[in-house]
């Protein structure tokens, strides 16, 4: 909103209307209000994309898209693969976005899980995910999980 507030100062009044009309149609990564106002959003979901680096962080941390960055396309595909693998392997357990952080040759995958299955099973899945993903991506993988009792713990607001 701040962006929109400051716009008129820089732009002549004539084009004001045009820009605002375009902004109205932007809907990527913005959640629709439900009729009853009871749709739960996590903190990450609550912020629209332009708040990244202001009130929330990125979901993928890497340097591939910088100048002379390596494998940008492959990294995007790998990230999508990791996300799908995680949500599938940890079926109905992930309560947050999956954050993928790349440092040197290590990939760290962070997520919040629900305490729905026994701890030994959680550990089994941790070992399985780390090992299988590292066979697939051929680099060390580390899982950084946090657990919450139920999904309401990660709800930031209802819309």
């Amino acid at each position, binding site marked *: 909103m701040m962006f929109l507030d400051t716009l008129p100062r820089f732009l002549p009044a004539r084009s004001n209307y045009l820009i605002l009309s375009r902004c109205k149609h932007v809907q990527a990564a913005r959640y629709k209000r439900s009729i009853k106002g009871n749709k739960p959003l996590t903190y990450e979901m609550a912020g629209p994309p332009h708040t990244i680096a202001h009130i929330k962080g990125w979901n993928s941390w890497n340097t591939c898209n910088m100048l002379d960055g390596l494998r940008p396309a492959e990294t995007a595909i790998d990230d999508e693969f990791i996300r799908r693998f995680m949500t599938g392997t940890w079926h109905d357990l992930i309560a947050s976005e999956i954050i993928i952080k790349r440092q040197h*040759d290590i990939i760290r995958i962070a997520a919040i899980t629900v*305490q729905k299955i026994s*701890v*030994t*099973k*959680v*550990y*089994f*899945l*941790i*070992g*399985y*995910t*780390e*090992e*299988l993903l*590292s*066979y*697939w*991506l*051929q*680099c060390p993988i580390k*899982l950084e*999980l*946090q*657990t919450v009792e139920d999904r309401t713990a990660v709800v930031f607001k209802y819309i």
Partner: protein
Amino acid sequence: MLNNYRTAFLRKSNETIQLFRLSSNTLEKSSSNGIKIDIPKYINRSSTDILKAISSTIQRDPTAAHFKYHDDPYLIPVSNFQKRAYALSQESGRKAAHWILNQHPELFNHKVAFPPIEKFCPNVVYDESSDLDENELKIIIEKAIVSDAIAVYNLLKKKDIEISSDTQQSLLELVCFYNNQDDLEEDWIEERWYTQANKNREEHRNTWKSNGFAMTLFSTIKSPNSYHYSIIIQGMAKYNQFEEAYNLYKEAKEKGFILSINAYNSAIKTAIYVKEGADHKWLHIQEILTQMNDSGVPMNLSTLNSILNVLTTMTSNSESKKYALKTIAEAKQFDIEPCLASYYYLLQIFCSDRKNKSTILVDILNLIEEKSLSIKDLADTNFFTAAMENCRYHLQNLDVALRVHSILLKANNYNLIGDSYRESVYYRHFFAILCQNESVEFLMKYYYDLVPHIYIPEPSITELIVKTLNVAAAVELYPKIWSDILMFDQADREPIIIELINGMAQNLFPSFEQSVKEKLGLLSGTIYDAIEERKETGKIKMPWTGTMLGNLINICLFGDNINKATEIIVKLHKNQNEIIGIPDSLTIATFLDYCIEKNYFNELLVSKIFRK
């Protein structure tokens, strides 16, 4: 105009400053002219040296679990069972992934990493169709994969491909070292950590595969030379096939071979089973030593350890100590420094007799205190556990125990603790000694540091700790110890409960602050509830005794927990036939007095029924 002047002025002043700096520098230099600068020699550093240096600045955080566990309250283990279960679960998950990798190798043929990392690739399967030669076999032997090596050797034989004697020999070395079977891979750290203890219990059991591949390979060698004999003797002795090993040794002797030093060491070890009686064993050792001398083979560290190992089996003989010292003296002449394994054997030799106390451990500690220790013998990992046990049962000396502990924590010495089993035995002894010490603060210092992340006390040790608290009347620690007992799942251990309740009842002093009193009253209520709950589920089979309930009533009254006290009184009354004995009449009198004093008439009426 003015600006121009200003820049010129500035430039000028800068120059003067620089000049001044230069002159001051030259002044300093001339003053230090007399001192010669020694540039130290370049030290070659490995790529991880900086990381090691940084990590050496960090100390263990006693509030954090081991880093193999996930740092989340829900995922941190709190009992020995959980520690084991969680660590092994994770490893079993890794194994599942590994199984998938090897079950579907065709899916994992993509190459992403450069240079390729072999560990991430599926295992290669060797069969008839694969194109093999001797080099392939050499590579597999280098990687120490026993089953693959045997398979490839057999395939090569089938295809009539000639194998050089060198490769044959290294294959024999491999299969003898691993006893014809694949060893647990190094990747499965947790499995190794938790199963090594079982392996040690198999000590001195003959596990050598007598009709295994090693024997077949040995028999196919047409004219075995001294190397082949040495290898097979070592292999047999390693897996406790002592008789065969000794027979082969004699055979090699008859053929006039000079064996390798390690083969002689193995032959010395065979004395444990081949010979009976101290004298025969010693003669056997002497015989082999003279043969070594005749063949010009000097002894080494493992010769020393083998001899001492044999001596530990004949400790009932009074001569064994003398022999041990002789051996050590002999080793000194060869400039052989005893390692931890030698000291471990020495402890066994000198401290087997409980009557004649030997302070050899102190002498050993004097020797190793300043040294940086590293593993030199497989038995090295036994030392610290044995030393702590020695402190507990033999010397019964806390100071020595603390010295042992400080040596263990020094530098990288903790690597020598062995495995999970030895570690917990070590701490069991350590805490037992700490409990014998009078000061509770001292005990609790170590308790807070080590429990629960490094060590979780066994029930017997918990009992000792509770006893120590009782003796020292450390009332403020009861809530802490009770919550730990609950956490370690030891609340169903009868001796601990009895000890705790009795101790609490004995340590009720009117001088305590009101807050402490109240805490105790509440605590006794929770203890009562916890025991009742466990009795219902059948975890505790022990029946209530009158004295225990009486003690609980006393503590409740002491802490003004009248509700619980009344509940227990009712329980006493209702279940008279299940409760053994009766509480002290003084307890009942206290209860009545308390009720009258505080005007609790309902409670008084309840107890009146009881008195009828």
